[in-house]
């Protein structure tokens, strides 16, 4: 019977440690993703003038007729 509880304890430790590692990895990855998204947003905001010019200030937009 004591062997059963020993295996039970080891498995529980394993599962808990796995879950903690998993949540740590998930936290790091999601933080990295959030930082990347924020960086891209900031960069788009910084370059907004050039982007708007490239999208709208051209012969293509002037020739489009939206009826």
């Amino acid at each position, binding site marked *: 019977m004591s062997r059963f509880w020993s295996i039970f304890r080891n498995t529980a430790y394993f599962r808990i440690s796995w879950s903690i590692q998993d949540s740590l990895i998930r936290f790091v990855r999601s933080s990295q993703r959030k930082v990347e998204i924020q960086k891209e947003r900031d*960069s*788009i905001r910084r370059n907004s003038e050039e982007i708007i010019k490239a999208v709208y200030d051209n012969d293509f937009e002037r020739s489009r007729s939206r009826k």
Partner: protein
Amino acid sequence: MEKIAEFTDNEGFTVSLTSEKIFIAAIGQEETFALRSVSGVGLFDDIAKYNRDLEDFKGFTNNPVPYAIIAIGVLCFILGMNGEGADLVVMPLLGLVLVVIGLLIRLGQKKKRPPVLDSYFTLMLSGGDRRFKFSKSEGNSRDIANFINKVEDTLTAYVSK
């Protein structure tokens, strides 16, 4: 049949519109679609890629390394002029070389062309969509706009007013 509109995209496809059909042609490839199979048109500007290219461009052209090299070169030149013996020859020469290298790098920075926004024109056909890459700032963009305008004129509602 008389051509109503035509354009050539950045990948070499020539797309022509007549009153009944759309012809798509490239070297070794030709397709013809009935105008009734066109259900819509789409436009997409790849802003994310343009923004990345713009960041790279700004990072490259605003890099202060050539200015630092020129400054070190000038410093070497001045120190060499005040030196004695071999320093009098080596240091100004080194300074001159560094200034030239710095100027060449700066010239390279100035020569780099700014990025171009990639745009895509999608022709929605009943057999699947066709996508054409083009640039709004290039000469053919007016032809593409005209082509889209003409195709849009053929798109009707169930009850045309």
